[in-house]
Every structure is written in structure tokens, then in C-alpha cells.
């Protein structure tokens, strides 16, 4: 490793042994896209079964495996690794660092993921089938009543927890130590800020998840009764532990997305981000609040009324910093000089749809009303507005935004716009009607439903297929860009772009910032 000017090794070894943040970033991104397709395939099975009332395609037991695997693969396999990939690519380039602080750990934290997900996917073929208790895997359905494959699921969660923790330690170490001279904390791009805070969230809550699955493992194999009432345990304890991880987890998913749109909206508004400082403080307060609201997922478990009130008030409070962010983005656009390239379209889509998801979140926070919403399709609609239209839309925006910098080729703008519009229409067709069926009384996680829900479920399925098809277009566009896109060597792909990543050559060389750049 003495010579810093060598290029990448050749062939497969390059990818297995690489410690380069760009290589690892690319691998994370490709891996997460593969998981996105896999999780999407599960979703298509779910929506195909729900197209009509009656059981057409799958057995109820298999249906539950599909919802469970869909949730797990999307959350842990698609969204989280995709943002880690983005962090790998962009954080060093944004803070003027030559690479991540801990490059070998970086390699390891990626290479843990594929085996872990292969193992998870294999549970589908095991005796008794894959885990079937939902991505929230409540005990005792996930312990005493689980198929034997749950042990592999637990192992897999442990592995990806290890991977996430290593990834986040790496990000924290990089941001704290490798900033170019002059890059003070309050000058860091917001994407770096949101990831720094996310990394702290991850380090704090992944061990809690590990604790939860370890207790499950003990209950399943070693005769303990953490979650079994028959042995003196407490099934509700599982939910507390899970959501103590789970609620911060939803912010782990969305904060980097906030960071992405905070980079993109100023670029295409040709105007500095409005309220940079308050964006940082809002992110930090969201992160703090996310630790004290977990039981809003548990309003119906029979908590004492004081507990309900506390969690209701605390959850409502989250709307304040979230609102601040939305207002700041809109004000950034105000009196800018706007253009609407694909990254901007996805960011505007994000802004509209995430805000709708935030509103439904606020509605869900009202405990007495949540008694009617909880575990209905209304919740499904809520979290798809924040996770798909929030995280995935911003991820699409990020890819279009930085892809030219990464590979020195321009994507096809027409196809990008088409991807946006088909996604936008498909997404809303798929998920807006779910608010209605949820309010009208359709529970979530059911393979078959009463007749009054038919129309909206059909719409929803059609929308889902459209949204799914749009992602194939996306994949095609990305590959076509990399293979044969119009070459570009402009350092600044976008007229309004600011930041160190736009000062390096295009395509970004294998090693960047071997000497620290000057920071304005």
C-alpha cells in the first residue's frame, strides 16, 4: 500500500480486497439496488394477491412470509445500505478527505452484508418457510410460534447490525478527523451533518436490536422466558425493546434523505440553503426526540394513561423540527432561479409527498384517534409516504445528481423525467387509496379482504405495478449512462452546485484530495 498513486487492482480481487471509498460506495449502491429489486418482487407478489378479494396466488402462510421479507429486505437491505453507499462516495469528497478513516473496516462492513442477506433469503426454502411475523417480528409469534428458520433470521440480523455499527463508526471517525483544514462543523454540507447524526443514532440503537434478537434466541433455544408469559416473561417487553430501536431507525432512514434534498434544492434554486443553522439544530432535535417517542407504536397495548399522554405529546413535538425543515426547503426555493432537472423533480416530489407523510404521522400521534388508525392500512400509507416517497425518492434524486460526477457521463434527461413522472403517478396511485381503505377499516397484513375494499385495492395494485416498472426504467437509464452516456468532463455538472465534490475532476479520479483542498 506504499504507493498512493496506483489505480485499482484488476478483476474480481479489486472488489473483494478494495479499501477505496468509491469502490466500496459503488458496491453498497449496487447491492442495495439488488435488494430493492428483490424486496420489490416480494411486494409485487403481495399486491398481485391483493388485486382481488379471495385467495388467488399464494397461501396465507406464504403471504405472511412475503410481507415479512419485503419489510426486512427493503429496510435493512435496500434503504440503509444505499445511504451508506452514498456516504462512502460523498462524505470524503465533501469534507476534502482522501478516503474514509478506517478503510479496511469499510471493506469488512460491506462484505458482511451479502452473506447475511443470502442467509435471510435462504430461509424461504427452509422447512417451515421464512420468518412470518412481520418486519416488527413481535414475540411470541416470532419465538414460540415461529418456524425453525427464525434462528437464521436472528443470525442475519446480528450480522447486519455488526455491519451497520462498523459503517457508522467509520463515518463518525471520518467526519471528526478527516475534515480539510478550515472545514468547521458549521461549514459542513448538510448531507455530512445528517449522516453524522444518523451514525450516532445507529451506534446507539443497533445494539438494542441485537439485544432483542438475542433474547429471542434464548427464548427459542435456551429455555428462557423473556417474552413468554407462560414462563413469567412479558410479550410487551419485546415491543418496548423493538421500538426503542425501531423509532430511531425510521429517522436513521430519513435523516440522510433530508441531507440529500438539502444539497439538491439549493443547487437547482441557484440560491444558498435557507436557515443552515436551524437545519442542523432541527436535525439534532429530531434525533434526540426520536429516543423518547417509541411507544407511539404501542398505543393499543394497554399502557397506563399517563404513559399514553407522555408519548402522545412527545410525538407531536417531532412535528415542530420536521416542519422547520419543510419551511426552510420551501423558502430556499422562494425567489430562487429554478430549473427542473431530474434530481430537482425527485426532490420536489420528496418535499410534497414526505410532507403528506408527516401530516399523517401527526394524525397517528394523537393517541385516542390512533386507536382507530393503528394496524390499519392508514399506517401502511403513512410509512410508505415517508419511506418510499421520502427515502427512495431522495435516493433516486441523489443518483441522478451525482452520477455524472461519478462516471463522467451524463444520464438521459428525458428518460430521467419519465422515470420521475411514472414513479410519482404510480406511487400515489398505489398508496393514496390505502389511506381510504385504512380509515374504512381494513387491517394491515391480511392476504384477503372484505368486498367493500375491492376498488381501492385494485387501484393500489395497479399503481404498485406502475411504480415497479418505473424502477426497471431507472436501472436501464443508470446502466446506459455508465456504458454509453454522453461524456462530460465539466467539474461542475450543475450550474448552481456548491461544495468540494464539484471541485475535483469529472469523472472523479480513483483517489481524490490526497492533499487537503482549501476551504472558503
Amino acid at each position, binding site marked *: 500500500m506504499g504507493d498512493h498513486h496506483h489505480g485499482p487492482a484488476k478483476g474480481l480481487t479489486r472488489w473483494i480486497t478494495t479499501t477505496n471509498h468509491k469502490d466500496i460506495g459503488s458496491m453498497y449502491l449496487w447491492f442495495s439496488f439488488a435488494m430493492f429489486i428483490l424486496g420489490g418482487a416480494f411486494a409485487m407478489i403481495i399486491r398481485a394477491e391483493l388485486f382481488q378479494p379471495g385467495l388467488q396466488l399464494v397461501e396465507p402462510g406464504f403471504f405472511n412470509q412475503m410481507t415479512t421479507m419485503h419489510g426486512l429486505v427493503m429496510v435493512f437491505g435496500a434503504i440503509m445500505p444505499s445511504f451508506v453507499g452514498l456516504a462512502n462516495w460523498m462524505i470524503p469528497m465533501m469534507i476534502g478527505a482522501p478516503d474514509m478513516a478506517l478503510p479496511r473496516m469499510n471493506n469488512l462492513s460491506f462484505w458482511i452484508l451479502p452473506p447475511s442477506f443470502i442467509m435471510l433469503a435462504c430461509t424461504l426454502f427452509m422447512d417451515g418457510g421464512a420468518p412470518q411475523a412481520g418486519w416488527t417480528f413481535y414475540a411470541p409469534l416470532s419465538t414460540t410460534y415461529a418456524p425453525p428458520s427464525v434462528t437464521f433470521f436472528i443470525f442475519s440480523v446480528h450480522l447486519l447490525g455488526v455491519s451497520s455499527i462498523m459503517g457508522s463508526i467509520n463515518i463518525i471517525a471520518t467526519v471528526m478527523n478527516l475534515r480539510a483544514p478550515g472545514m468547521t462543523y458549521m461549514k459542513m454540507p448538510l448531507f455530512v451533518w445528517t449522516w453524522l447524526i444518523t451514525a450516532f443514532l445507529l451506534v446507539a440503537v443497533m445494539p438494542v436490536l441485537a439485544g432483542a434478537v438475542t433474547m429471542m434466541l434464548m427464548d427459542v433455544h435456551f429455555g428462557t422466558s423473556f417474552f413468554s408469559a407462560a414462563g413469567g416473561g412479558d*410479550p410487551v417487553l419485546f415491543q418496548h425493546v423493538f421500538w426503542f430501536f425501531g423509532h430511531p431507525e425510521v429517522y436513521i432512514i430519513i435523516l440522510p434523505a433530508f441531507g440529500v434534498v438539502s444539497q439538491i434544492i439549493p443547487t437547482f434554486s*441557484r440560491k444558498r440553503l435557507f436557515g443552515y443553522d*436551524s437545519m442542523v439544530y432541527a436535525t439534532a432535535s429530531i434525533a434526540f426526540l426520536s429516543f423518547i417517542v417509541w411507544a407511539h407504536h404501542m398505543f393499543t397495548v394497554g399502557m397506563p394513561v399517563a404513559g399514553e399522554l407522555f408519548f402522545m405529546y412527545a410525538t407531536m413535538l417531532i412535528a*415542530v423540527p420536521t416542519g422547520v425543515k419543510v419551511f426552510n426547503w420551501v423558502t430556499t426555493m422562494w425567489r430562487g432561479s429554478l430549473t427542473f432537472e431530474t434530481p430537482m423533480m425527485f426532490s420536489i416530489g420528496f418535499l410534497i409527498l414526505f410532507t403528506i407523510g408527516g401530516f399523517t404521522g401527526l*394524525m397517528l400521534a394523537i393517541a385516542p384517534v390512533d386507536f382507530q388508525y393503528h*394496524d390499519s392500512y392508514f399506517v401502511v400509507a403513512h410509512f410508505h409516504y415517508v419511506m418510499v416517497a421520502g427515502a427512495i425518492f431522495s435516493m433516486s434524486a441523489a443518483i441522478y445528481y451525482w452520477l455524472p460526477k461519478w462516471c463522467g457521463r451524463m444520464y438521459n434527461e428525458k428518460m430521467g423525467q419519465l422515470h420521475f413522472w411514472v414513479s410519482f403517478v404510480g406511487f400515489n396511485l398505489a398508496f393514496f387509496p390505502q389511506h381510504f381503505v385504512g*380509515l374504512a377499516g381494513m387491517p394491515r397484513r391480511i392476504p384477503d379482504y372484505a368486498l367493500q375494499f375491492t376498488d381501492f385495492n385494485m387501484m393500489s395494485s395497479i399503481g404498485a405495478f406502475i411504480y415497479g416498472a418505473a424502477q426497471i426504467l431507472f436501472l436501464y437509464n443508470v446502466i446506459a449512462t455508465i456504458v454509453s452516456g454522453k461524456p462530460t468532463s465539466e467539474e461542475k455538472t450543475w450550474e448552481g452546485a456548491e461544495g468540494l465534490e464539484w471541485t475535483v475532476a469529472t469523472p472523479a479520479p480513483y483517489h481524490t484530495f490526497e492533499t487537503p483542498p482549501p476551504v472558503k
Partner: protein
Amino acid sequence: MCFDVKRLYALALGPVLMLMSLVSTGVWASESERSTVNMTAGVTEVGQQIYDLHMLILWICTIIGLLVFGVMFYSIYAHRKSKGAKASSFHESTSVEIAWTVVPFLILIVMAVPATKTLIEVYSFDDADLDIMVTGYQWKWKYEYLTDEGERVSFFSNLRTPQSEIGNTEAKGEHYLLEVDEPLVIPVNAKVRFLLTANDVIHSWWVPELAVKKDAIPGFINEAWTRPLKEGIYRGQCAELCGKDHGFMPIVVNVVSQEEYQTWLATKQGEAAQVKELMAQTFTLDELVERGKGVYERSCLACHGAKGEGGVGKAIAASAIATGEISGHLDVSIDGVPGTAMQAFGGQLNDVDMAAVITYQRNAFGNNMGDLVQPIDVFNHKKG
């Protein structure tokens, strides 16, 4: 089942309009039919309060949304580069930031006040006129009337929709998946308190029109209450994923007049007394086997197979337990096998049926034990 064209239009007009169409259609929600787009106000005062809160917050969100999106779309329209817009350079303002922190906070307080009031109302469990124990099983509900006088009435409520409708070989009925063999019956205008628990995994008892959703958790007893103001049949479903047939354990509540309820209760108590009488009787082997065959087909066949060959459960034919000591057979059947799908049937079958099914298992599928179990044996075994 075809598309409602109006709804498709509503969809095309985008989310904001959809919110409004939701609100306007909500108006017919309060009439007889349950709305298919909005929450029901149901038939209780609490339900009405919850519905009002829901609408209040929906409106507040809609208005804020219209304002925010309005500003955004104006800027998308007016401040585009293609129209020659030049970017201005302002990028912070402490007073604006403070304003849009404080104002939302005040709006939240406006929401929190009625929410707190309603929540406290939901949690007022005292002074119930009737207590009903609700127990979730995979995949059915058990109701037990905790009355002070007369026999205790208790029964299971199973999905009634036939497999042929679910499998699409027959046309689906009006209440597809929302119909049960035996509904819960409660009197109108009475405060009914539910005590909820579960036998295996977590379930959740949800009837939108009664404004009740509460988890039924093994080892816990949760409380919930309702006071329906209108007679009628109200339907709901299990709301917490509870395994394979989670989608197939509906709830039907029949709210009837006080008199009708009393008559119904008296009949049920009479039936309960009859079973009690049977329990004191002694049966012949043939009587038990005949009754036991029916019980087996209803309660055991799904796992143990039509010929006792097993499946999810172990084989009964030539099983060491079914051909061994009677007490061992009683143990397994009454208490189940913890950690497996074999539930404790002691609470699900009455002693007559339990005696019958065990006798049947010992004398069918080639198990020719020739011995028999009387209800009194089951009773004594349960007492320990």
C-alpha cells in the same frame, strides 16, 4: 367490482383534492352505510369524539398543506429560470425561524387539549353494566359473559365464510370474511367493559363502529369499553398479525335491545346448564365415539389428519400417547404441548366433548384400546 369513475377522477386531481373528496364523502359516513373512504363516527359518543378529532386534525393539516404547497407552487411558477428569474441571496432570518417554530407549537397545543380529554374518556373503565372476557385464539375469539347470576355463558366465535368462497369457486356473499358462526350479543345503551387476553400470540380486538381497538396479549388482561347508542350488527377484524389465518378471524357484534338481550342470555344460560347436566352423566363407548368423531373433525382434524395420520400435529394412529396411559393422553389434550402448535384444549372444549374426543382417538384409526373416558374423569383430571 368495476372502477368507480368518479374516484378515478378524484385520484387524477392529485392528493389535495383527494383529501377534500375524502372530507365531503365523510358526510355520508354518518348515515347508515359505513363510509368506504373515511373513518366511521360509529355508534358511540367516544367514537363521535374520535371522529371529530380526526376531522379537526385532517383540516388543520390540509390548510397548512395548502399554504406550504401554495407557496412552493407559486415559486415553481414565478421563480423559474426560464422566465428570467434571478436568484436573490437571502438565506437566513432568525425572526422567521422563531415564528415557524412557535406557531406550529401553538397549533399543537390546540390539538392536544381535545385529544387529552378524549383519551381520558377512553380510559374511564369504571361503572360498567356488563363485563365480557374476550380471549384471542389462533384464529378465533372466545367470549365469556362475567355475569353474577346464572350459568356462565361462554362460546367461541369462528369465521363462517366457507372455504369455497375464499378459494373463488363460489360467489362471495355480502359479508364475505366479516361473518361468524356465533356473534357477540350486547345490549344497547349499556356500558360494556371488555377484559381482553389471549391464549397463544398477540391479537387485537377491533370494531371500528364501537370505537374499540385493544390488544389481546397472553398473560395480560387489558381493558376497553363501549356504550353503543344504536342497535345493529357491527363488524370488525383482528388487527394484530397473529399468524397464518390472521385475516380470517372476524368479529361480529350484535347490539340488541335490553329485552332481547335478556331473552338471549336466558337461552344461553339454559344451554350451559344442559351441558352441565350432561357432564354428570355416564356414557357408553359408542355414544362417546360418535360424539367424539364430530369433535375431532371440528377441532383436531386440521392438524392431525382425517385418518389420524398427522400433519402439523403428530400422528394419532398408533401414537404412543393415544395408545398409552389415559392420564398422559388427558395431559396432552387438556394442557397442550408448550412451544408447539398443540394448544391447551382444556379451556376450549367442555368436559363432555373432551371425554368424547379422547375416547374417539383411542378407538379409531386402528387404535383399538377399548377403554373410555367419562366427563367426570376429565373434570377430576383438571382439578389435579
